[in-house]
Structure formats: structure tokens, C-alpha cells
């Protein structure tokens, strides 16, 4: 999970892994690792989720944390326009450190749509470049499971392709 601070990375993981949500903001320091098993086409897939501390002027994502990743979830906060560019820059970092891996961009906090500042033209640009962009809400549990399952599917397909 990659993104600026306070975009909802930990909330999305907690929603997915434990089914819980807290509206209290608690910053992540370092890395938080969670596990969940999902079923993809009759196979059990063990996901090890690395919830990385958000990137800002206080803290940068350590490149070593990206090593060995099979997929990336980039998260932006719909109510804070600048977090979109941070997510895009983090994707560039992933590409530099790890090479191409399946990823998805989440525009989180869709429950606060009336306060959204995300540049829709920029999103259209990314979509036309092939990015998968999903609007999510950890609070309302909207599209959370879908995103993890879709990414898991893509990671499996890529792994099968690489093994073939």
C-alpha cells in the first residue's frame, strides 16, 4: 500500500483484513504487515500486505520495502488533490526499484465526494494510458474487497505467465 499520508491506506487494509473501520487518524510509522488468504479461481492465495508509512516531507518510502513485491496498491485521497501526484510519483518509484508489477490506483474517500478536489482531466489522462482507477471508501466498505481481489487475480495471471 503506497500513497501520501492520511489517504486511508491503513483503513483500507483494516477494512479488508478485519472488516473494521475507525475514523480516528493514527499515523503509521515504518511498516505494518498483515496477512489474509483469498480464494482466486479455487486456489488459496496468501496475501502479505505491506502497509507502508505515507510519504511526505517528514518521511520517504524506503526503496528496500518495495523489494519482492508482487503488486502495488496506490492510494490517493479524493479530498486532497495533491495526493494524486504523490501516488503517481510512487508508482514511478516502484517501476524504478522493482520493474513492472500489477498495480491499481485507488481514489479513496468516495463517501466525501462533495469535497473532492481530484483533477478529473488528470484521471482521464491516466485512464487513457491504461491505468486501472477505482473509487473506494473504507468507511462505506465500497469496492475494497473488489480491489484486492482484482489485483490478486492479476498477480496470479502474471505469475502463471512468467512460469509458463
Amino acid at each position, binding site marked *: 500500500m503506497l500513497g501520501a*499520508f*492520511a489517504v486511508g491506506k491503513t483503513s483500507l487494509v483494516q477494512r479488508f483484513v478485519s472488516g473494521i473501520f475507525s475514523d480516528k*487518524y*493514527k*499515523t*503509521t*510509522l*515504518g*511498516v*505494518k*504487515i498483515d496477512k489474509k488468504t483469498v480464494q482466486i479461481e479455487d486456489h488459496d492465495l496468501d496475501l*502479505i500486505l*505491506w502497509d507502508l508509512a*505515507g510519504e*511526505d516531507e*517528514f*518521511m520517504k518510502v*524506503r526503496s*528496500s*520495502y518495495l*523489494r*519482492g513485491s508482487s503488486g502495488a496498491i496506490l492510494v490517493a485521497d479524493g479530498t*486532497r488533490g495533491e495526493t494524486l501526484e504523490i501516488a503517481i510519483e510512487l508508482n514511478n518509484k516502484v517501476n524504478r526499484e522493482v520493474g513492472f508489477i500489477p498495480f491499481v490506483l485507488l481514489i479513496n474517500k468516495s463517501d466525501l465526494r462533495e469535497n473532492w*478536489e481530484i483533477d478529473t482531466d488528470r484521471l482521464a489522462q491516466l485512464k487513457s494510458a491504461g491505468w486501472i482507477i477505482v473509487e473506494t471508501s473504507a468507511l462505506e466498505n465500497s469496492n475494497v474487497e473488489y480491489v484486492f481481489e482484482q489485483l490478486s487475480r492479476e498477480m496470479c495471471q502474471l505469475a502463471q505467465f512468467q512460469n509458463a
Partner: protein
Amino acid sequence: MLNFKMLSVFPPSINEKILKIIMGSHTFAYMKVDEKGEVIDRGGDFESMGLPTWSIGADISDSAFFLSGMLPMISDYEYLPSIHISDADVIDVHLFLENDLAWVIMQDRSDDLEWQILARQKSNELRLLEHKVQALNVVHEPTPEISLVFQALNMVAMLKKDNDCFELLKPAAPVFSIFYPELFEDSALVFPQRRFPFIENFLVDAQVLWDSKENGRRIRSGPWVDTTLDGDEVALEAVALNWEEHSLLLIEVLEENYQLQHRTLQIGREGKLAKDFLAREVSKQTQQILEREEEIALRLVWAAETRDDGETGSHIRRLGLYSELMAKHLGWEQCMVDAIRIAASMHDIGKIGIPDYILKKAGGLTNAEFEIMKRHSEIGAQILSNSNSELIQMARDIALGHHERWDGKGYPYGQSGSQIAISARIVAIVDVFDALIHKRVYKSAMSVDKAIDIMREERGKQFDPELFDLFIKLREEMEVIAKNFVSPLFGGIG
């Protein structure tokens, strides 16, 4: 403690001798005190016991703290052992009741205290030694002494072996039992990378360090948060280091330091979020205020100019938008761009001072009538003068100068070139353009091409040449504005 029963066994002469022995072995002092605490009689060595020398007649009920609550006596005898007068002075106090008076006998026990302290010290040292011996006896394998240090620091230390396994330097700190119980099993060989995916990642960098064989060099993994068996979170950090010929992996449970770092980061980020939120709110509010001011200004100006059939609400609006477009391309600051958008609409506010018969005259004006009409520039400037508002000051400049000409042949003052405020020079161009391409009571609308041809003749004469060139460059966008803001009364552009 005095055993009175024993005294009744001995003959009085023996009791007297016992008393002398006791009195000789310790320092004593006495007071005879009434029920209110007043000293009736006294004697003995008060000073060597660290006691004040209370005089006869003194009220000691407050100063003799050890007698607090003891007077008046309600029993024949009271014993107060080991009263600490100071760090070095300890006394026993015996109180006897005789004929409603209290005999207070104070016995110095300071020498006895010194021996007690020494004895307690020795006893504690012995107990600590026994504890250490027990601890040493628990360890079945020889361990580096340094592992005890790691244990004390809530760390676990492991020696890197071949084949990806590690030898645990026992004993592990007890805290690890709540999330890494494997460390407390019999085997000394462990695989921390199987328990912690984070360690698996870190070992890549750690191996590079160990391969370097540089003694004393170390790297830290950065903190990660794992979960105990009870589901609680625990913060950890790994350190890889080279120690003499050994490759060591340490895993530390982070405590106060991590909490402090976390709190600091939390405060910093909450502060930033609050600051960003406030900035957005201020921007929103400012925008709302601007929009409100603009609407008020436009409505008021339109109301003031509504007598002039040529000055429709749409014309006023268009002038603001044309001017805004020019200002943006001139690189003005946004606040000034916003200002000209509103200020331009007030260019003819001075017409409020022009009589209707001149203002609404369908045909041409006589010289005398034109002279009156020309005054609307100064009237407008007067209406808008003496303001601290940058917007109103700009509106004043526009009202006063929009009929001046670049070549100095304009009015009211015949200013030329850059003497004329740039805002007025902009409005001069766009006002003429909009008037030409829209119908008026005294003329029909003309095409944009024709209007520009006419205006081009005035480049460098009526109009600032550079501003006019910019206007031409922005022609297409000007036409979009012209088409989108059409007066319902007079129709669109020609």
C-alpha cells in the same frame, strides 16, 4: 520493650542494679509533662540525641512531634520504638502515667541503628548473589556474556549460520514470548525470516553487510509493526552487524523511543492536515466573498447605468471578461486579474451624472452636449475616489482614463502613452470592440472582421499598440466571450 513482670521477680536491690546497667549503656533524657503538654520537670542529655532542649514551662505539644496524639495519656504505659529524630539520631520513647502527669523517658538508640543498616545491607547483597547463582545455573549452554546485555535491552540476538538459519544466543528477552514463542523452545536454531516477512526482506541488505566483513559496521531495518498472539501490536526493529568474526542479527522491541517518534510524527501530520484544511477553507471562503462582491458590483453598476440603453448588463459583464483575459495573458497576479474583471464594469458609472436628454439621445450630440457627456469620466472618477480598496482604485483609473488616447488626443486630461493607467488602456480597446460588434439604438452591429479593421487604423493612435497586438492575438477567445454573453434586448454580434 520493658518486661514488667520480670521486675517483680527480682528484689528491689537487683532491680536498682539492672536500672543502673541500662542507664549506663545508653544515653537518656526525661521530661515530666502535664496533660496539656507543658514541661514540669526535665533532665538528661537532650543534645546528644539530637533533641531540642525544652525548658521548664515550655509547651511541647507541637514541637515534640512524637508526642502528637499521646497527651493526655489514657493508659499507664506507652512505648514508641525507633523514632527517627534525624538521619543519624534514633530514640526509643517510654511514657509512664503517674498522678495525671506523663513521665517521658527518651533512650538513645542511634548506635543500634547503625548495626541494623549494616546487617540489612549484607543480607540484601547475599540475596542478590543467590539470585545470580540461580540465574547462571539455568543456562545449559555457554553463551556470550553480551547476550545478557541484549536481553536487558529487550532484544534478541542471533548468530548467522549457513543455510539461512540462525543460532539463538539464549536467553531471549521474555517479552518475545508473546509474539515469537519459538525462541523459547529447546532448539537453538531459528529461522526469523519465516516468522517475519519483514526480516526476509531485510536479510537481503543484511547479507551484503555480513559479506563485507567490516567489523563494527551495522545497518538498521527501520521499524515495523507486528502482532502478538493476543492481537496487540508490537513495534520492532532489526539490526544486522558484524561483531569480530560473527554476523549478528538483533531484533529489538521498540519502546519509549518508538512511541516518542510516533507521537511526534502524529502531531506533525495532524498539524499539516489541519493547516491544509484551513487553507482550503480560507480559499473557498475567499472565492465566495469575491463572487459575492462581483455580483453586488455588477448589479449596482447595471442599476446605475440602466438609463443608458447602450450599457446592458451583458455589455458590462463582457467588458469584465475581455479585460480579465487580457490581464491573464499579461501575467498579472490572480488578485489583480479578479480586480479588473469587476473594475472594468464600472468604467461608465459616471454617466449617472449625465442628463437623460443627452444620454438617451438617439442621434448625434452637439458640441455642447458632447462636452457635457465627456464629464462622465471625471464624475465616475470622483464617485470612485478616496478608497483604500485596490479594486475601487483600479475602477477609478478605468473610469477616468478609458477615453484617453495613446496619442494624447483623448479626454478628460489629454494624457498619452503610459501616463494612462494600463487598466484604462485595456478597457479602452475592449469597450470599443464590444460597442462595434453589438447593436445600439444609434447603430447596427458590425462583423468582427470589420470592427477589427476599423480598430487597426487606431493602433498607436487611440490604442496602446502592444495591448492592441495582444488583443488581436486573443481574438478567437474574445469572440467566444462575445457570443456567450448576449444581451436579450439587442441581439448578438454582427
